């Protein structure tokens, strides 16, 4: 078999490296303490409950700031400046990181995204019949969920908790159901986040939801590409600031796009809009895009899809690359669990 390093293989190596840093990084890069983590506002689901990681997700500070700080402006405990300054600092850090890597934090850095991709590959090799794309009607129903998750679970419910309208369990509701909390802590041998909490009805419901969602996510990832990413509030929060990111997915027009549609078929989040014809170079970094680059890899036309950094093309689609990539994909799909399992 001809050796050919694809963008996907390169991305897998980066994801593996980032998974090690985002789950075990404190063992060799930072330390156990929050103060020693890199940014504490990472645009990826690297969970703060995993004490061994090198950095953690921005959604936990946002929820805590809504609950304990921003709410202070409503209750009169804090001045407006005292109330919003921490959130502004977290937001500024988040935006700076988005400027640097944009939504590639999802496709290249997020440990939960990598885990789902690995489970999907496993499902493929185990012979699970996979759903290659979700139907348009399903997508229409699923896509808004991430915005509701962002609005209610990350901002509104924690804020209402801080003001006193909701119980304490609603102070960080997204973290309570986030599969990354269970995944990353289990990955470091800590089982304390996989539990049913009997201390109150609210805590019990959240804990059961979290465990159930984690199990469902694994089952779904065997047959569907990136099931949790589609409803992840981080994807939505990144989408708010995607215009300022230096890394973009850019499309140059091609008349064959309408009849091809390969890019949309391979897209892990089923962005069918990618295949629409663009008359001039257009930024097509959609809200659901994770900048994984798969669409550019599988585009059979020269220069039609490009991953650009500050206007400079990092990766461009080409006929030659497409032929090799397609061959490589066919070879990969031929390999089944039966081929590698001991006889």
């Amino acid at each position, binding site marked *: 078999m001809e050796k050919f390093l694809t963008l996907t293989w390169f991305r897998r190596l980066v994801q593996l490296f980032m998974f090690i840093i985002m789950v075990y990084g404190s063992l060799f890069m930072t330390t156990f303490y929050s*103060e*020693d983590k890199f940014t504490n506002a990472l645009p990826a689901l690297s969970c703060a409950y995993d004490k061994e990681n090198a950095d953690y997700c921005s959604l936990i500070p946002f929820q805590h700031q809504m609950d*304990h*700080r921003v709410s202070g402006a409503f209750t009169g405990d804090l001045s407006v400046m005292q109330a919003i300054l921490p959130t502004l600092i977290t937001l500024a850090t988040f935006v700076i990181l988005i400027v640097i890597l944009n939504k590639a934090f999802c496709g290249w850095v997020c440990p939960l995204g990598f885990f789902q991709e690995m489970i999907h590959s496993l499902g493929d090799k185990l012979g699970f019949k996979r759903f290659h794309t979700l139907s348009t009607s399903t997508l229409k129903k699923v896509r808004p969920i991430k915005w509701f998750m962002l609005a209610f679970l990350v901002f509104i419910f924690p804020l209402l908790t801080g003001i006193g309208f909701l119980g304490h369990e609603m102070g960080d509701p997204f973290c309570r159901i986030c599969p990354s909390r269970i995944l990353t802590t289990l990955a470091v041998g800590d089982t304390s986040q996989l539990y049913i909490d009997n201390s109150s009805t609210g805590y019990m419901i959240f804990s059961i939801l979290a465990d159930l969602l*984690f*199990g469902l996510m694994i089952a779904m990832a065997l047959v569907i590409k990136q099931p949790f990413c589609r409803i992840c509030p981080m994807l939505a929060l990144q989408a708010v600031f995607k215009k300022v990111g230096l890394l973009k997915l850019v499309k140059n027009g091609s008349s064959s796009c309408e009849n091809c549609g390969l890019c949309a078929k391979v897209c892990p989040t089923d962005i069918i809009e990618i295949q629409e014809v663009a008359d001039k170079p257009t930024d097509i970094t959609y809200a659901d895009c994770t900048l994984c680059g798969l669409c550019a890899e599988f585009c059979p036309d020269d220069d039609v899809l490009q991953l650009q950094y500050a206007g400079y093309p990092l990766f461009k689609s080409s006929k030659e690359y497409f032929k090799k990539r397609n061959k490589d994909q066919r070879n990969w799909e031929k390999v089944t669990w039966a081929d590698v399992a001991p006889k």
Partner: protein
Amino acid sequence: MRYIITVLLFCFTLQAQGYINWQPPVVKATKGDHSGHSGHGKRKAKQLQLNNYDPHSELEIFYIKPTLEKIELKLENSLVSLPRTGMENYHALVVNQTKDKSINSSVFYKYSRGRPSKVSPTKITQLQKSDLEIAPILLPREHDEYHGSKSYDFEVRFKGEKLPYNSVIFNTSNGTTKTIQADEGSEFSVTMPNDFKNVKTGKRKNRPAQFILKSSYVNEGITYTTTLAMPYYVSPTDYWQSVSGGAIVLIFGLIVGLYLFRNINKKKKKKGKV
């Protein structure tokens, strides 16, 4: 308004042993005032009580900020009020008592909320605060505490250097006592006992207990003693959180997911045949 007066059970002073130590004072608490999490930046000034000190000795009391700046404090009726530094992270309350041929010290680490200190807690634990000192290898991280049934590592240092094989006595306010010996690297591990009584369901319904680590060392005719006192809490997984229950729900979710997709595939096949 109904007030419930509770007296804390922090009365395990070490009069007999004579080790100087910091403890939360005996206080009257009202209902609704026993929250373990009263909100960032909304807490009252905290007081700590110094036990077993000699009023005729030379006392040096200081509060160390996360940035390692020292604030000198005065003792009033055995109590010190911890100043608000407005800085987030661990602070250390230290007392050094010198009398005749004995030097006694005690350290208490307190997590305070405020603006980010941007300094690692490693700095405050590694700073030499007294001649003989027991220091945590790692303090519990933000939003975490010492919990029963979990192990934590500490080390004994003398004048900033490691002190191997020194004996350490471990006491808790719930009555647990054991003697531990530091290893050749001067480190030792303690599993916080699950010695809580009448545990109620829910973290905020249970008050923390206190543990004290004590050690002594004689050098050039001078007796050095030190204590490290901190609170520890009921471990949720010992009482109201079930890890095995969580694992069962996870597996259930996995099975439900697989069952759903099996059915969807069957329906798709049927449609295809029609």
